[in-house]
């Protein structure tokens, strides 16, 4: 077994997802099968291989530190589920 239902529940909690018992069971079965397939990577000898991070050999990209206009506040707030014209409103944090 590559992943247990308990592990699925634990990872889901880390990812801020709530799964019901049936969802967890179904997901565990599917993920176990997928991870079983992925396990074939262990056949490959990678002891001498560097980790690939980019497809192009790009160097760091610098630009002048200049200010550019930001979107107006009303636009930035326009898609918010709740806002008061000045800030985003969220449930009590503290």
């Amino acid at each position, binding site marked *: 077994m590559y992943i247990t239902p308990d592990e699925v529940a634990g*990872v889901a909690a880390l990812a801020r*997802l709530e799964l019901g018992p049936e969802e967890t069971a179904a997901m565990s079965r599917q993920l176990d099968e997928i991870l079983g397939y992925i396990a074939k990577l*262990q056949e*490959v000898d990678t002891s001498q291989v560097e980790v690939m991070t980019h497809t192009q050999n790009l160097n760091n990209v610098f630009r002048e530190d200049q200010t550019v206009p930001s979107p107006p506040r009303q636009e930035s707030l326009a898609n918010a589920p709740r806002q008061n014209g000045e800030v985003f409103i969220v449930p009590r944090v503290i």
Partner: protein
Amino acid sequence: MNPIGLTIHQLQSMLARREVSAVEATSSLFEHIHKTDKDIKAFITLAEDEALTQAKEADRRLEKGEADPLCGIPLSVKDILCTKGIKTTAGSKMLESFIPTYDATVVAKLKKKGAVLLGKVCMDEFAMGSTNEHCAFGTPRNPRNTDFICGGSSGGSAASVAADECLASLGSDTGGSIRQPASHCGVVGLKPTYGRVSRFGLIAFASSLDQIGPLTKDVTDSAIMMSAIAGYDSRDSTSVQREVPDYRQDLKLDIKDMKIGIPREYFLEGLDTEVEKTVGEALDKLREAGAEIREVSLPHTEYGAAVYYIIAPSEASSNLARYDGLRYGLRNEQAESLIEMYNKSRSQGFGDEVKRRIIIGTFALSSGYYDAYYKKASQVRALITEDYKKVFQECDLLASPVTPGPPWKIGEKIDDPLSMYLSDILTIPANMAGIPAISIPCGFSRDRLPIGFQLQAPHFGESVLLHVGYSLEQRLGLGGR
């Protein structure tokens, strides 16, 4: 004159001669969409008012002799690209009412050229899927036979082009999401080199793999679209500063003595016999044209899907962490605490496939598993890329099928994610290495469903893909349909 069924270059010459106006062309297309899209279901949002305003403006420019090949051309855009003032859902309930405040760079470029944006088309939720069955707003159907999948994730793009609901479309390709639906619907789909096209305004799935590209009715249109969207953008630091060629210019070059490699690993056990036969016949055409066909080996091909299903979900789990119900997107209003708001909003907003991938990615990146999964996958990714480098020393490009089989029936693989994942094994490696690849229709299965032919080239080899693709299209006589 009716514009339905025309290519971009055909409509463009009619517009230039003023045989039809952009407003007439746009209105006829909407009329056509209202009839056909009841069955095809390619569109999520139609932007009729905006499109007609753009068409009027295009007509003004055309009257003055505007020569841009896209001026007045009606297009559709995958709903993963931000469009200012027009709802952009990414196929997810999470973004059901999201209205971007800016245009993606590619959208802005098309608008500037005078193109007309008819609306936003369907996709698998956050581009995760190969069938468009994972779209929160319905599943588009394959216009060639509506019982079958149109492919994914740019399924609405491919279906809208194949159903003549637009002249061309923009899609995005993370593991085959342009080429696979193009193959299944019988249109041309090009995934450019990573960095060739700006990703600014593309809703992110897997940032080291995502690339935007065109779906068109023929190779000439693909060249026209590529010239319009390619180029450096200071707002995407992974876009590359490199001159954009006029892709249309080289289309008619001879292909004599070009070296085309056939990767033997792509003709694997389980490859559909009709696909193998049709692709073989297309290769014969290229041989007749004077190309030299030789067998080559990409030994790590078989690991591509395994690498992909670590790297893509890992990047997705990070990219999709931004959907927290706070600044935009769906929020569960019953939640009493912040954590509960995150949990409930995300659980309600994301569909099953997206949850599955977020969980795989979170697992692969979690402490204790990182070396075994993400690090290992990134190393095998380097080997896949190395395979290409070696092979491109002895050939100019690679030819193969796009998918192991023709499209399947809607619903057939919905409960079997692994089997769906494995349908992408021939398209994934190009994304791993960041090289360009194109899917070109090369024939039909016995059920009259399209079969695609894939060409892959070294980094920034779009010109050679289009040029050899054009030659193939001419010889197969399938150009423009």
